[in-house]
């Protein structure tokens, strides 16, 4: 793939979406249903990206077992985040468990 073209396409789309309201002004009305729909976009996109990476890290079926460091570390990260709400702590805890678990099962 031509990554430069991909990036410039992304840039064009993003600038358009960010600036269009400022440029059009009050000429555009936002239906409430669209408002509501947009509010669910970040959480659904991010979840849809990571769930297959966690459950099937090798893309060959579900790996719901102790030999899946992605799964173990994700569960730890979810628990840490749910209880502390600290983003950096969540990321660090997840990474530490991930690398430690990977070392342990390959050792």
């Amino acid at each position, binding site marked *: *793939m*031509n*990554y*430069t*073209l*991909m*990036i*410039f*396409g*992304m*840039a064009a*789309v*993003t*600038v358009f*979406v*960010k*600036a*269009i*309201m*400022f*440029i059009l*002004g009050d000429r555009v009305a*936002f239906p*409430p*249903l669209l*408002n*509501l729909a947009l*509010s*669910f*976009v*970040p*959480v*659904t*996109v*991010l*979840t*849809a*990206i*990571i*769930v*297959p*990476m*966690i459950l*099937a890290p090798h*893309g060959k079926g*579900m790996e719901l077992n102790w030999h899946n*460091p*992605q799964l173990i*570390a994700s569960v730890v*990260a*979810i628990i840490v*985040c749910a209880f502390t*709400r600290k*983003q*950096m702590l*969540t*990321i660090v805890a*997840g*990474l530490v468990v*991930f690398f430690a678990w990977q070392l342990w099962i390959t050792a």
Partner: protein
Amino acid sequence: MTAHIPDTQQEHTPLISLAAGARDTLPMLVGAAPFGMIFGTLVAASPMAPWHGQLMSLSVYAGSSQFIAAGLVASHTGMLVIWFTTLIVNMRHMLYAATLLPHVAHLPARWRWLLGFLLTDETFAVMAGYYQRHRNPSNGHWYFLGSGLAMYGNWQLWTLVGLLFGAIFPQLQTMGLDFAMVATFIAIIVPQLNRLPQFGAALAAGFFAYLLQDLPYKLGLLSAVFIGVAVGIALTRAGTGSGVGKAKESEREVQA
């Protein structure tokens, strides 16, 4: 209550407002730094060249869509799907812009393009607070620019640090650094799941993303997002009747 603080910004020069905007964005800079760095390392571990990562930070400048693009590139997704995903993921900026519009509508078009480009979650948060404290600031757009430029410079710096880090330690890829993205996303997702519609939307999106993962061009991902959004809307409606839309509308009228 702190209503109607006398507007001291009125007397300030553009430069002072610019600096104030940058200063008030400082906590956001610290918060964004690790994400910029992780993005840089992700690019270094992806099929893209390191300079593509910097180019993306310079020209796209939208953190979550950059993360997602790096993830999609790593899983060999088609370009059109990446563009469409970028559009969907960044559509929330239209909500931000709609909220800030009354304060920038009077500016020349080049200012509105520039401030639109610099709009991020963080700068929106800073500007929403600023316009609440200051009724009619004459240099509000300079404050906006200060906040935006501080975030922009910060993002470039930490992207570069991440790219260098990834280039120096290329074995990070085999060690599975892409898990950093999973952990980062978990840290973004989990705090949003405290309400039933969000929880249901995420659950449905995750379930169908797994179920449909073998569809070509990541169409399974997009389908999962649409299903998740539909579930979120349905749960919101079930929980509050049709009052939500009306409440949001009146909220917008108050802000305008």
